[in-house]
């Protein structure tokens, strides 16, 4: 592992106390904008401001616990990287469904269930990979983005799923404030760097809030309510209860899948950011991260807070500042815990003008949508994947545009399936399982030693990789190994007859097997010296063998009945 030059303090380094505390403050600032989500859930059940403030306080407490669980390692729990959780939009959408059908106790009960599902998934992550190829991951992210944007737009323009605390129609001046807020967020993000960019949403919300106050949009009672809230108080648990509804298991299961995928992405990003020699995700930390994330959500549901999920925003903040030390988690958790005892924080979020909140949701959704598209297209798309993405996306959007597409389903199913995220994901998962049939997972090529063409060999692996939807970087490594191994075998082993190449793929592995009649290829685990490379006849061939061994994740070579087989294994 080698620390990249742009990293000031790596994940296992100890920054000076002042740097640690200031970094912690920045993180809490960036995390605080998401406190809007528990408030939206409280508003959906028309809960009084005190209950919303308590939900915010308890969410802060859950975040403090989740931060320590995620950023350190306690046995199998925790990633050890700075990717602490926030109240997540992935749990906002099912939470709103649950709030509507069974009030806050159902939100908390289902949140616990979702956390437990995520914890269970963390143990079988490797086996789940074929079910969640990048096109499905990207699709889920895209649909989360679309749904987030729609929640924001509905706060302003309303619809049958109206979640706003008031039913009166929105005034034009409020819409203007919303647009100004959105413009500030976008402007700070596009034309700035550093802190203005990182805190653009928080600054936009603050300016929008102030503007609303100046224009008289805030009701006189609103400011009084903030002033009336006690300066320090223990969070109230009066609203906390738990109930469970199996029909809501599906949307929460989809949310826990989305949460799992986000943790995987965040931990991997931080592994890359901490190691200039990074090659592939370290699954132990990824699994620990998902386990901690699920546990954080169980804690959140248990104490009456909204579901949590590791935040790409804090990962981006850590990477941008170069302070990646996990010790930053200590002041983060401490500050979050202190804020939990200040009810005015919850009141401020509860009384935020709806168009300001909407601007934050719409702005955030743009990044989620584009991130989803990037993940979907990170691998080459063949006809199968194109049809899958198109149909699943259409199904997801159709239930929002035309809910009557579900008219033949029973009423309780309609409520669950009638969410773009749930229906789109389910259609995508089912199509993925169907379309996987008939994909050739093994490809063969015969190469005559006298007419060895490197371009043809590379083309063979490129085409195979495209059909499998394999990761381009893994295929690039496999290409180098295959060309170099055939070149070395032809030169040093003088094979009789053609070399048979067999490339085998399943979501976890790419295996390249080369078999030929002749002596076994030498694959030394020690590099030959420069003198040996330059002076001996086979020096550069042993160098090739050494590089082949190092470039693959595993190598095996067997010689049987005059025939040699060399297998290069690549983790995928």
């Amino acid at each position: 592992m080698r620390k990249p030059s742009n990293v000031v303090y790596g994940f296992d380094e100890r920054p000076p106390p002042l740097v640690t505390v200031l970094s912690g403050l920045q993180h809490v600032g960036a995390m605080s904008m998401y406190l809007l989500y528990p408030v939206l859930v409280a508003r959906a059940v028309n809960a009084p401001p005190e209950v919303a403030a308590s939900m915010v306080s308890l969410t802060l407490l859950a975040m403090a616990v989740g931060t320590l669980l995620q950023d350190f390692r306690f046995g199998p729990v925790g990633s050890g990287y700075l990717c602490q959780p926030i109240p997540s939009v992935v749990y906002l959408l099912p939470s709103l469904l649950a709030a509507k059908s069974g009030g806050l106790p159902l939100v908390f009960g289902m949140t616990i269930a979702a956390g437990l599902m995520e914890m269970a998934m963390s143990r079988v992550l490797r086996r789940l990979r074929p079910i969640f190829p990048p096109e499905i991951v990207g699709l889920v992210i895209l649909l989360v983005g679309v749904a987030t944007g729609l929640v924001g737009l509905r706060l302003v323009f309303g619809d049958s799923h109206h979640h706003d605390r008031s039913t009166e129609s929105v005034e034009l001046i409020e819409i203007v404030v919303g647009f100004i807020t959105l413009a500030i967020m976008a402007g700070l993000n596009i034309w700035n760097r550093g802190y203005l960019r990182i805190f653009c949403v928080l600054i936009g919300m603050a300016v929008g809030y102030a503007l609303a106050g100046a224009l008289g949009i805030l009701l006189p009672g609103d400011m009084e309510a903030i002033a009336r809230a006690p300066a320090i108080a223990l969070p109230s648990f009066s609203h906390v209860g738990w109930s469970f509804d199996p029909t809501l298991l599906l949307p929460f299961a989809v949310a826990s899948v989305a949460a799992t995928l986000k943790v995987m992405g965040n931990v991997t990003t931080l592994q890359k950011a901490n190691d200039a020699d990074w090659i592939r995700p370290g699954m132990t930390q990824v699994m620990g991260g998902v386990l901690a994330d699920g546990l954080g959500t169980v804690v959140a549901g248990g104490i009456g807070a909204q579901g949590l999920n590791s935040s790409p925003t804090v990962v981006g903040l850590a990477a941008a500042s170069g302070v990646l030390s996990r010790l930053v988690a200590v002041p983060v958790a401490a500050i979050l815990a202190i804020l939990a005892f200040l009810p005015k924080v919850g009141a401020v979020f509860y009384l935020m003008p709806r168009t300001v909140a909407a601007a934050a949701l719409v702005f955030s959704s743009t990044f989620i949508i584009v991130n989803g598209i990037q993940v979907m297209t990170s691998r080459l798309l063949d006809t199968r994947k194109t049809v899958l993405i198109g149909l699943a996306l259409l199904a997801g959007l159709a239930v929002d545009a035309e809910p009557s597409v579900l008219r033949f389903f029973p009423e309780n199913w309609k409520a669950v399936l009638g969410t773009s995220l749930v229906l789109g994901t389910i259609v995508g998962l089912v199509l993925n399982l169907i379309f996987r049939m008939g994909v050739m997972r093994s490809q063969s090529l015969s190469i005559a030693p006298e007419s060895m063409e490197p371009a043809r060999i590379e083309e063979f692996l490129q085409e195979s990789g495209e059909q499998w939807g394999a990761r381009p970087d893994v295929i690039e490594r496999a290409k180098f190994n295959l060309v170099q191994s055939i070149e070395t075998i032809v030169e040093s082993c003088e094979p009789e007859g053609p070399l048979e190449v067999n490339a085998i793929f399943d979501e976890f592995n790419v295996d390249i097997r080369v078999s030929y009649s002749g002596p076994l290829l030498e694959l030394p685990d020690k590099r030959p010296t420069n003198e040996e490379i330059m002076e001996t006849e086979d020096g550069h061939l042993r160098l090739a063998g050494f590089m082949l061994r190092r470039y693959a994740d595993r190598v095996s070579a067997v010689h049987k009945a005059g025939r040699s087989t060399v297998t290069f294994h690549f983790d995928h």
Partner: protein
Amino acid sequence: MILTEQKVGNVNVIEVAGRVDSANAPKLQERAAAIFASGSGAVLLDLAKVEYISSAGFRSLLLLARQSKEVKSPFVLCGLTPKVRQLFDLGGFLDLLPVKATREEGIAAAQ
């Protein structure tokens, strides 16, 4: 493999394009060795357009580095793509051979 030559001051810039493997590495080595032997200055290999380099190619580079020391003429490499750089790293050549990021830096180092 295609070699394109250009002289900048006393630096002979050889731009290498394509694949450097056992079939053509001797050609590259012979060309650069001839420059060293003629005493016509330093050699800068610009590898920005190299897609692949095999162990035979690395052997040629080691031989050229040794010859450059013998004739006391600088030998510098530049323009490694990330993929080729990874191969250099893998074979332990990044610390052995003088590698510069750009052609300009390479020329400055070779003068």
